[in-house]
């Protein structure tokens, strides 16, 4: 795309701003900020990626993945503030997902061993892991709060902490995975996945783009299940103390 074309594309920014002004929606400021931020962030990422790809150094790949994991962890942990040690629990989960998926992808030569593949796939996995972590934590905290009497009941009858939150844990794991599974059922029927569209626009053959998109979908399923399950099993024990009592969250 030429620079001239990119400048013309700003027409698509002007349309919502003009609409917002005429209808007094008051969204001009936010829209402008969003546009400026996305231009800056994406340009910076573009140049960083170019630098990393050109340098062909594994250290930069590591650094980029680390930055992604840190950013995703910091973003997701806000939702889990009620759970002790939630920051490292999310970080460990995301690191595990990254190591597992890349080991399989690279180990079986499913994807080439280059930054061009490792970084975008890592980004998708970590980003999806972050979304799943937020969905899971939101649900799990709500479930345990609204079912305190169930927890108390099971503890009173001589159940263990794990038994006392089992139902809430399973409900939350399932609920957080449903959007991933549901969205995959209709994929391609309503809208083409962004990544696949991008590849097609960039000139790849549709079949090749589909193959790659399928790989990503399968990876997303793994990410979704591992994030919720791992985070769940790391989280519930800190809600209880050694005497099997519920620890009150501040």
């Amino acid at each position, binding site marked *: 795309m030429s620079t001239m074309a990119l400048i013309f594309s700003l027409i698509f920014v002007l349309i919502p701003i003009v609409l917002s002004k005429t209808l007094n929606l008051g969204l001009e400021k936010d829209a402008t900020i969003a546009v400026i931020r996305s231009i800056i962030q994406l340009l910076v990422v573009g140049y960083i990626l170019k630098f990393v790809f050109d340098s062909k150094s594994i250290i930069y790949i590591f650094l980029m993945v680390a930055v992604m994991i840190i950013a995703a962890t910091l973003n997701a942990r806000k939702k889990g503030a009620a759970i002790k040690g939630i920051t490292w629990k999310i970080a460990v989960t995301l690191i595990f997902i990254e190591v597992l998926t890349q080991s399989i992808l690279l180990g079986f030569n499913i994807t080439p061993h280059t930054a061009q593949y490792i970084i975008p796939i890592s980004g998708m996995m970590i980003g999806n892991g972050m979304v799943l972590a937020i969905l899971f934590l939101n649900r799990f905290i709500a479930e345990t709060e609204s079912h305190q009497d*169930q927890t108390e*009941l*099971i503890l*009173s*009858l*001589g159940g263990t902490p794990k038994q006392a939150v089992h139902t809430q844990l399973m409900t939350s794991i399932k609920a957080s995975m449903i959007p991933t599974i549901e969205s995959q059922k209709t994929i391609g029927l309503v809208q083409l996945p962004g990544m696949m569209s991008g590849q097609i626009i960039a000139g790849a053959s549709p079949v090749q783009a589909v193959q790659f998109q399928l790989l990503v979908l399968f990876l997303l399923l793994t990410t979704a299940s591992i994030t919720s399950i791992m985070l769940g099993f790391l989280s519930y024990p800190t809600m209880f103390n050694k*005497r*099997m*009592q*519920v620890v009150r969250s501040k």
Partner: protein
Amino acid sequence: MLHKEVNRMKPAIQFKDVNYSIDGQPILRNISGAFYDGEITTLVGPSGAGKTTLLKLCNGLLSPNDGDIMIHDQTINDYDPVELRRTVGMALQSAPMIDGSVHKNLALPLELQGKRLPDIQAIDLLNDVGLSEDFLQRNSKELSGGQRQKVSIARTLVNHPQILLLDEITSSLDQVSQKEIEELIVKINRKYGVTIVWITHDLKQALNVGTYTWVMMAGEIVETGKSELLESPSNERVRQFVKGELG
């Protein structure tokens, strides 16, 4: 369930200068005293007095900030929490049900140990609390308040507790069910020698069923003794409270 040896002068539960607070806010203060073995003791007092909190200290759902609680002469912290909660059973005020049938709820204490509850035993339990066997497959969501309480009590009995803690189990019951439950609890106490600590807001009930009573107010015990003390309290605050309740 075998009848256990009862020594009525021996404490089943003993409090030694127990204090409990939440975030520095005192909830229970200087609690000392005993619930005697094989006896029914009622806990009465205005809501918010700390009655439920006191019960939760007895089965280790909560621990005191200081002081000690002895269960059958053994300090509560020496018990394994699971063993403690099976020995000291508790029927919660809200009688929470797990999703599913009445049978599933009755089987819960055994299911937690990886065991099953045979239908015959489940039916016996239902009969014990005055429910017919038709209830076995009934969905727990369809039970009335009173029926739920009965299932909740039967469920607590599955563990054969030596001490039974009851939190306002008859508050939501009609007169008939209330009488049934009172008779049932007295029967369990007589037949099996189970020590019973019973929170009730109904002072007539306290007089009817309890040998001893503790009157609690604002986190403290203001009076303890034979239930008859409720008829002529010596403490002025208790007199006011009793007057309000008994009319």
